[in-house]
């Protein structure tokens, strides 16, 4: 069984009958290991990595930058290097970009008749002491043809406009080590450049008092105790129904408002930055929101996120609280108008900073300030009013539950314990369930 894995172009969405190969990390004939990313596709919405299912030798039947139809076989993995066919058949680019025929001009590539020289061409040949015989096989020789032969570059103004390549900074091999950007990183740059390069973005912060915040919030959470992310997603989603400008994007000459609120949250734990999406987040309860975060995070870690779980993000939240950052400025994603950054909670000051970067072409500072103010108020409304007391040390003398852990938010009763000492008893132990 020579071929151990056959890689076909997948159907990622009904609209994409073709996908573009954007990266081939290996060269044909290389050894690949199970789990290695061997092909990166780009669809109209996202990129999609194909990993090797098994160890073997890769043989590509495709090229980068080319489009392939769904179900085309574009690569094979072989058991043995020798089994790779000597000259893998190069697949042709199947997308015709212009409704004309390409073959017409290439039909007759050779010419056995006489060559006709223009007077200008003849003069140039003479002046340069060239032998006209070098043009044998041509039908016509113009001045431009002679210049080309002489190595004089073509003066083509229209071409110049097209080749607007980014000028590269010089690198000195003695002083620096150059590492090529991964295709993922390049894509990320493209995505973020789209809005940020206009320079028309601005950032506004607000401080959320976090003291006593989790007394109530934690009651709703099963796993992510003491985490702000679920409540931030929950409340932001609801607020975005009101602040439509932040759930929108700039199209170039108008503003497109999303009909749904789909909140993406950025994760970056070893596997690269990904932004999974919680669709219709404004209709999810806190528990459902938390469950969605857990599910998507686990899939991220397992590398099993589906394309649709990364698509159609209308607003992004990036939570760097786990990294202990005190403040940062997030960057807006493509086809979004704003992003919310959540910094770490300063335990001493009992507060954290929320940051919104927004696209000034879609909205303006005042509206974002109102949004942040309302978000702050909503989050702070979860605060327990008793948080200032040293709740940790107050424990029920019967069940040893601390006041902080108590879910009823009623408080403990001061009592005399059976041992005759002063102590506390919780409502459950006092009244029974």
């Amino acid at each position, binding site marked *: 069984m020579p071929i151990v894995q056959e890689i076909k172009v997948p159907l990622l969405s009904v609209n994409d009958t073709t996908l573009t190969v954007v990266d081939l990390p290996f060269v044909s004939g290389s050894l690949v290991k199970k789990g290695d990313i061997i092909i990166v596709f780009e669809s109209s919405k996202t990129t999609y990595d194909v990993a090797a299912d098994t160890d073997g030798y890769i043989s590509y039947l495709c090229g980068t930058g080319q489009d392939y139809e769904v179900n085309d076989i574009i690569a094979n993995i072989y058991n043995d290097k020798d089994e790779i066919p000597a000259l893998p058949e190069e697949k042709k680019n199947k997308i015709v970009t*212009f*409704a*004309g*025929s390409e073959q*017409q*001009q290439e*039909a*007759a*590539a*050779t*010419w056995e*008749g*006489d*060559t*006709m020289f*223009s*007077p*200008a*061409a003849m003069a140039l040949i003479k002046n340069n002491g060239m032998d006209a015989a070098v043009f044998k*096989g*041509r*039908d*016509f020789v*113009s*001045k*431009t*043809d002679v210049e080309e032969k002489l190595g004089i570059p073509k003066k083509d*103004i*229209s071409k110049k406009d097209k080749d607007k390549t980014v000028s590269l900074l010089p690198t000195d091999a003695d002083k620096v080590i150059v590492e090529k950007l991964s295709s993922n990183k390049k894509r990320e740059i493209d995505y973020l450049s789209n809005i940020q390069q206009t320079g028309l973005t601005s950032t506004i912060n607000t401080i959320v008092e976090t003291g006593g915040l989790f007394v109530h919030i934690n009651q709703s959470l099963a796993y992510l105790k003491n985490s702000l992310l679920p409540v931030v997603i929950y409340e932001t989603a609801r607020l975005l129904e009101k602040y439509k400008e932040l759930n929108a994007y700039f199209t170039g000459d108008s503003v497109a408002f999303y009909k749904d609120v789909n909140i993406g949250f950025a994760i970056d734990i070893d596997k690269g930055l990904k932004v999974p999406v919680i669709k219709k987040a404004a209709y999810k309860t806190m528990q459902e929101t938390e469950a969605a975060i857990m599910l998507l995070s686990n899939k991220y870690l397992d590398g099993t996120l589906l394309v649709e779980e990364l698509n159609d993000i209308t607003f992004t939240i990036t939570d760097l609280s786990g990294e202990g950052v005190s403040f940062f400025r997030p960057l807006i994603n493509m086809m979004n108008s704003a992003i919310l950054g959540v910094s770490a909670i300063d335990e001493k000051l009992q507060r954290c900073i929320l940051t919104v970067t927004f696209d000034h072409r879609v909205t303006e500072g005042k509206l974002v300030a109102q949004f942040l103010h309302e978000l702050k108020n909503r989050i702070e409304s979860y605060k327990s009013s008793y948080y200032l007391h040293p709740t940790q040390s107050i424990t029920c003398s019967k069940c040893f539950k601390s006041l902080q852990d108590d879910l009823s938010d009623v408080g403990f009763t001061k009592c005399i314990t059976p041992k005759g000492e002063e102590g506390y008893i919780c409502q459950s132990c006092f009244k029974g369930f």
Partner: protein
Amino acid sequence: MTVATINHRLIKQALTIRTVEEKFLSLFSEGKLNGTVHTCVGQEFSALAFAGQLKKKDFVFSNHRCHGHYIAFTGDVKGLLAELLGKASGTCGGIGSSQHLCNNNFYSNGIQGGIVPVSAGYALGNKLKMNGAVGLVYIGDGTLGEGALYETINIISKWEIPLLIVCENNFYAQSTPQNVNLAGDIRARAEAFGIKTFKGHTSAPEQLMEDAKTAIDYVRNETKPCFFLVETFRLNPHSKGDDDRPAAEIQSYREKDYLTIFSKEQGEYYSNYMDSISKEVNEMVEHILLERELSMEEYYEHVEQSNSSKWQVAKPVNKRQVELLNNFFKENIVNNDRMVFLGEDILSPYGGAFKVAKELSFLAPEKVFSTPISESAIAGISNGLALNGFKPFAEIMFGDFITLAFDQIVNHASKFHHMFNKKATCPVVIRTPMGGRRGYGPTHSQTLDKFLIGIDNVKTVALNTFFDPAIVYNAILNEEHPVIVIENKTDYGKKILHHQSANYVYEINEDEYPVVQVRPAVSSPDITIVAYGGMADVVNSILSNIFLETDLKAVLIIPSLISALPLNVIAHSVAKTGKLLVIEEGSAYGGIGAELIAQVTEQIHEKIKVKRIAAHPVPIPSVKSLEHTVLPDKERILKEIKMHFT
């Protein structure tokens, strides 16, 4: 006066027509009609006497005041009501409305006089089919001012075409009394052409019915035309609110009106009939008002044009273009039952001014018609033949004269299919030679293609000498809509692909109306030149000069279907060369170069250099030196390329 003897069935039909007309007037006042109506109240018996006494296989052509004729001939009251109320169930889906109806051999159009040659062509078709069907065309006295009428009367008399012309004389052309505009005698006009005439009056319906029957029988039995003058009164305005006639005069008509007298003398019958007719019409209208209107998709759907990009080497034919044209027509006039050939001076041995029709009248004398100098009638009769299932080829001797047939092309041939909501097709073909360089001067040398390419639903084709013209004419045989073919006087005598420029390849694509491309054998071209018709051959002859003098390798693209230019072929080439030159023999303003450059720049977003070379905007002089200066000649083309592209 007494009405005792008349058949009550006729009275009821007349009352139906009147009720429908009155209903239209009230619907108009209620704002339920889009547009206006021309009612025939007072003239009902003219409709019943003629259209009402025809057989089903016969036909009726009518004019703007056609409702009565329509009901009398088809009996389709509901279709008419729905048509004017703009409903999809209307006779023509609401497209035509009051003046443009088509149903079972009934046709009407709102152009005065233009429908007369069309009806003559239709009648000629019946005569060729020998099916015993006859027909009539209604005109009003206002139409007596139109020239197309007399062109047609002359021809139907000469060719013995079985057509009855019914002239309804209500003494007013819109609001102008007859004595202001009409000279001489109406009947005498027809009699001068040797046509039998009759006269009657709608106030004597019994007599009118009888005389009408006699006239119809005469046309049918003798296979000859006839002219019937019916005097009548129009009791309502021309259309709406445009009545300046004296009230007393109208009142006197009203009193003489047969139905008014009937209502007085037989009041009981009258009210019984009116009650049931009104009830029926009102119920129909109520029902129709709830119906839907035609959607745009049902009316018209745009079809994206595409051109073949498969190129084959074009092959020379060692025959002159005119020989190939003549061969095509000789073969088809014999073998193709539908083909009819018409034109001025086309009888053999002369065979037409440019000999395209040579020997045709020997081969099929019954289908080759040499016409008087009547371009409007030639085109109109051809339209009528086409409506009747024939494939007429009309020759206009010089392209300059096509302006005389313009009404038939624009207001008739072009419109029939859509305004009759696809109930009719008009596959007429008009051929005509254009172009100068023969010294014929201002009115026999023009290239007027720019006036023809923008007519909806009409294809305009320009022949050239790069392939056999039979390819184009075979494609035209399959067309179901009008086609105008522009031939070129100077091309007639040239052989197909006789001159080939050195180091160039001549290729033809697979389109029905092929595109020819002349390209450097191996090099990529630097400039795209588009030329067509007679101009293509001129440009072809200087391709080497262009290279030698300008250092540019040109590709020459030669379209033949110029009413839908091969955009993707041309744009594809221009995308590579970045330069587009269009050369036309007509003048530039609003011409084919303007159209093509607009289309190409819509498609290509890179910057391209464009230029038109065309005739100077003055009449083409007869004097040779000036004629060659006015038309784009070789020296001018070379000079302009140098100036604009190098």
